[in-house]
């Protein structure tokens, strides 16, 4: 027994000594948290496509926008958003042409628009095997399986090379957009505008190709006749009509340069088998390059050593007071050497890791909200003391997006042009209290929408001077108040559904809501929604299906009521109002107008408004359009989400600029602070371990005692 005791004591001693205050919970390999300048962040689901021709969602942009460089970008600091050249040497020269391609005399006979675009010289690509030549033939363009033996990722290719960026790469990419094999989501849109795009596309699709190589060479050799290469650094694009928003498109990753070598390189089937494709390993001129892409685990961006010396933007004196303005502006980008994005599906770990300092920035999910943010007495938003003390910075801004509940206008009950249905829609719109929604489900991170158009975009109605007259009344001192439930009820009665009972059939009116997914919140939301309808005695039936089913219903127009949202492609009212444009009807034309709303007046106005530059005249038209839809209530105007983003003290130069995607290059890291804080926040607590040791000791001792007892006992006891 003595021996055992001795051993136990020794063990305890060892364990206690083993416990240090060094953090044990660092989720990265220790080598990484060093004095290297690394940016740590997370992504929720693996990006599906990193090929600029395909990718269209923000989580994909988060990566490729750092790698690929389109012609233009948004100014990082300026608001309202302003386009500035990126690879282009200056903003393009725009010429308006008439039907025979002469400069148009008058505004009315404009048939074509021509953009002449110049790009900067000696911009070169990141180093990549696709460019590597041995005596003037591309070494890696025809790989045998022997070459590929121990190659698992792009890094495993020994020899790299690069070349200068030319306009051919931009032109080639535009052609790729046309190639239906690439499933570009905007091919449909572009063929409306770019001259010869459609023809090229059809020609390409008609032709049968023996293999991708020949397809690529075909794409390379044939031209879209609306697009002319003038010299290596200049080219021109002709649009079929006047379309000012086209510049915005040019700023999107769809129009990034694509070297044909890369396309050819990646088109080899043997590489595909190893998941080495253009979709996973982009090739760009941008400040960063993707060195590790394991979508199951993490994605790593590293500084592109070939990146030309772009500098931090400076804006005039209004930024003088910024403490870090002086030491950053005019400094060469990018500041950080490496960015590590870890896959983080669950929200809980993401938030906790951020609090522990292992992620440099984070959004705020509604459930962490009150932990993060509080309203001070004057009502504006500040951080909670807890986060204040951690020295976390908060940035808020209103996204150029809108969430709405749509009515399917093709539905016999809820839809249609009849007064009956309109009144019903209006009644419901009044009944649904989005103020409450915002406070419950987004913790007030949003503002009530008066119309589809979010703030910061021409035609936005602020809900003070301009507002939705169908749903709101002016109260005193130019604040507005929602119409009362009783009004809603009377509307309902007018519509012939007194107390929610159909006067014809005498049955209660039952409406159907199409919900998607079964997220943790769905249940709560559906309950809330039913409560809203109950207010005016309407029965709401929710049909929950997965996103596929939902899509299908939308396309067949079998749904009745649904919730959806829209993120702006570019900051222009057209990009929102087209969601209600008749010709975009989802059922009829497979467009984005999910509620299949159709109104002659609205459509004609839309066509007028569409091609105008922002102007008071345009605003006037927009106002008229809004009035129409506000009358008809094809949607319940939901809300425009406010996006809050948190970042740690050591992460510098955070501006939230919701249009710009290529923001990583501006960020900077102060590593000393980080290390100090992380060590401070993550002191391990060894209580549990001691506890377990004690349990085990008890375990062992009791056994020994039992053994001895058993040996002692005699037959009587």
């Amino acid at each position, binding site marked *: 027994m003595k021996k055992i005791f001795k051993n136990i004591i020794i063990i305890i001693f060892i364990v206690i000594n083993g416990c240090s205050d060094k953090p044990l919970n660092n989720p990265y390999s220790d080598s990484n948290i060093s004095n290297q300048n690394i940016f740590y962040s997370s992504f929720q689901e693996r990006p599906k496509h990193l090929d600029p021709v395909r990718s269209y969602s923000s989580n994909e942009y988060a990566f490729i926008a750092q790698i690929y460089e389109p012609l233009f970008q948004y100014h990082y600091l300026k608001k309202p958003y302003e386009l500035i050249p990126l690879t282009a040497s200056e903003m393009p020269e725009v010429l308006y042409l008439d039907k025979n391609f002469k400069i148009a005399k008058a505004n009315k006979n404009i048939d074509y628009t021509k953009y002449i675009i110049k790009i900067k010289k000696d911009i070169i690509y990141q180093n990549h095997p696709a460019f590597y030549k041995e005596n003037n033939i591309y070494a890696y363009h025809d790989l045998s399986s022997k070459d590929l033996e121990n190659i698992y990722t792009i890094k495993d290719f020994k020899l790299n090379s690069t070349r200068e960026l030319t306009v051919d790469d931009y032109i080639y990419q535009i052609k790729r957009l046309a190639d239906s094999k690439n499933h570009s989501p905007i091919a449909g849109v572009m063929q409306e505008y770019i001259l010869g795009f459609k023809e090229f596309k059809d020609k390409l699709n008609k032709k049968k190709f023996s293999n991708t190589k020949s397809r690529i060479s075909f794409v390379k050799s044939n031209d879209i006749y609306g697009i002319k290469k003038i010299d290596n650094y200049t080219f021109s694009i002709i649009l079929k009509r006047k379309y000012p928003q086209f510049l915005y498109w040019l700023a999107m990753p769809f129009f990034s340069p694509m070297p044909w070598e890369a396309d050819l390189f990646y088109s080899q089937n043997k590489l595909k088998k190893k998941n080495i494709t253009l979709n996973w390993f982009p090739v760009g001129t941008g400040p960063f390059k993707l060195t590790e892409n394991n979508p199951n685990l993490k994605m790593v961006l590293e500084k592109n050593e070939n990146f030309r010396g772009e500098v931090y933007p400076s804006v005039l004196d209004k930024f003088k007071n910024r403490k870090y303005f002086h030491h950053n502006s005019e400094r060469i980008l990018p500041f950080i050497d490496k960015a590590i994005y870890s896959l983080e599906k669950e929200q809980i770990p993401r938030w906790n890791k951020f609090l522990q300092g292992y992620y440099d920035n984070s959004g705020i999910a509604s459930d962490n909200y009150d932990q993060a943010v509080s309203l001070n007495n004057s009502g504006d938003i500040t951080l909670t003391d807890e986060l204040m003390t951690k020295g976390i910075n908060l940035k808020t801004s209103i996204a150029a997006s809108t969430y709405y509940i749509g009515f399917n206008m093709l539905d016999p009950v809820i839809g249609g042009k009849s007064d009956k249905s309109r009144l019903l829609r209006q009644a419901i719109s009044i009944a649904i209290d989005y103020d409450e929604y915002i406070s419950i489900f987004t913790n007030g991170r949003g503002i009530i929408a008066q119309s589809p158009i979010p703030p910061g975009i021409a035609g936005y109605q602020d809900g003070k001077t301009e507002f939705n007259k169908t749903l709101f009344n002016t109260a005193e001192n130019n604040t507005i108040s929602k119409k009362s439930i009783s009004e809603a009820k009377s509307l309902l009665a007018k519509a012939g559904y007194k107390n929610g009972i159909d006067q014809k059939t005498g049955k209660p009116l039952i409406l159907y809501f199409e919900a998607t997914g079964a997220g943790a919140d769905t249940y709560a939301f559906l309950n809330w929604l039913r409560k809203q309808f109950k207010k005016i005695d309407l029965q709401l039936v929710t049909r929950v299906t997965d996103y596929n089913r939902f899509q299908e219903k939308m396309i067949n127009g079998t749904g009745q009521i649904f919730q959806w949202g829209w993120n702006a492609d570019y900051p222009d009212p057209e990009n929102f109002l087209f969601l209600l444009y008749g010709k975009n009807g989802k059922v009829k034309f497979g467009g984005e107008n999910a509620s299949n709303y159709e109104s002659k007046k609205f459509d004609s106005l839309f066509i007028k408004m569409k091609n105008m530059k922002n102007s008071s005249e345009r605003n006037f038209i927009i106002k008229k359009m809004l009035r129409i839809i506000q009358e008809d209530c094809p949607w319940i105007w939901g809300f425009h989400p406010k996006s809050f983003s948190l970042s740690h003290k050591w992460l510098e130069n955070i501006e939230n600029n919701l249009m710009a995607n290529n923001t990583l290059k501006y960020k900077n890291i102060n590593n000393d602070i980080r290390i100090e804080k992380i060590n401070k926040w993550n002191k391990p607590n060894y209580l549990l371990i001691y506890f377990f040791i004690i349990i085990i000791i008890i375990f062992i001792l009791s056994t020994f005692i039992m053994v001895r007892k058993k040996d*002692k006992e005699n037959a*009587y006891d």
Partner: protein
Amino acid sequence: MSKLLNVKNLSLEIKSSNKNILKNINFDIYKSEIVSLIGESGSGKSLTALSIIRLLEKSCRITDGEINYLNKNILLLEEKKMRAIRKNEISMIFQEPMRSLNPVMNIYDQLKESYTVKNTKNIKKEIINNLVSVGISDAERVISLYPHQLSGGMKQRVMIAMAIACKPKLLIADEPTTSLDVTIQKQVLDLLLELKNKMNMSILFITHDLAVASQISDKIIVMRDGEIIEKANTTNFFKNPKNTYSKSLLDSTHYLKKENKKETNHNDNTLDIKNLRVYFEESKSFFSKQKKFIKAVDDVSIKIKTGSTHAIVGESGSGKTTVAKAVMGLAKITSGSIKIQNKDISNLSSRETINHRKNYQMIFQDPFSSLNPRMRIGAIIKEGLCFLNPEINKKEMDFLLEDVLYKVGMTNDALKKYPHEFSGGQRQRIAIARVLVLNPKLLICDEPTSSLDVTVQKQVINLLTEIQRRSNVSYLFISHDIKLVSSISDTISVMKNGKVVESGKTFDIINHTKNEYTKKLLSSVPQIIN
């Protein structure tokens, strides 16, 4: 002669229900003598043994008494010391050799454990000698085998070897031969005797079989539900047992010899089996084409006259039961014919069979598994009746039941009860009633008594003979106990490995048989010597 072991008013109780299962037991065992502990199942003989070696279940507790081994009470020893005693002084053999050996250890390892010496070289030699001494000639081979590769007799020998390894002063043998065939039984008994003399140890021999006891023991102790009711030395005991129960035990072993009633002149056969063959197809290996057969019954012919009893005798695995099954249509016949009342049952239409079936019925070995525990006795007895003659009406039915129950010596109130409310003997009566109610011409009795206590055995046998006398039904009586058979059967056929080695009138075969095997059988049956 000095006292080796002395059990002084030992009492035992079951913890959960404080009911005594041993009530002050007193007896002595002297050096190098064999004491037999006799009693029927549940009389507490095994418990006595276990409490001597102190291996009782946790569920029972010694309430009183002491067990003095060499004049010191071993019940007071602490477990550790007791182990030493088990290792060197007292050892035990159990009833079921197949279950008493560890299936996953080979013989060598198991034997090794009973030696104290560490050095393995000599141990191996010792073990081999030991095995040889218990009559296992090819010990070298055996020690590397696993229990399941040995026959029952071999296993028991190994057990014995294990027990005597430590040269114990006292050997406790708990029904060591019950599960063995008679021939083997004899060998084992002889072995025990020999060993006893060789290494003059004392043996506490526990058995239910008086004959066996009479053969080996110096002293007899009779137990009945937890009490000793008689102690005597063997010769006296068998001459004149004092206690009435002992008497009944004693005379339950020898049966009233059946008076040879005059030959039934009309010699028509109730049962006529001609060269019956029953082969079972062995599960053949995946690739080989040709089938292997186990010849369970190979060319057997039997005739039974009306109202007479024919017995099939044989050791386990001799195929006697298969014959019965074949007759009852429970086993497929490979070839040969079975005639019952001159109807060949193998080519009857299903309708006819149903009509015919009531003429021949079967009584099974184990009354505990032959009655469905979920059915009332009434239902059990009715079952066949309802099915085989559906036309019968309620009143007749009730009459029949009452009548048959009377015949087997039971009362009406049994009908409402469930099997588990009856003792083994009663169950067997019920089983008999079930078939009797159909008043069959032929009854096949498959070891109807082997699972019963001796006294009960006798009653059942008597019942059967009684029945035969009343309604002259003929029996096909299957048993391993040639002694029993000889007393009740008119004709016998002795079976071995599926073949009939000899058959004929019982008297002839018992008294002057030609056949070696039969001789062996007869000789190895233990007889009470007095």
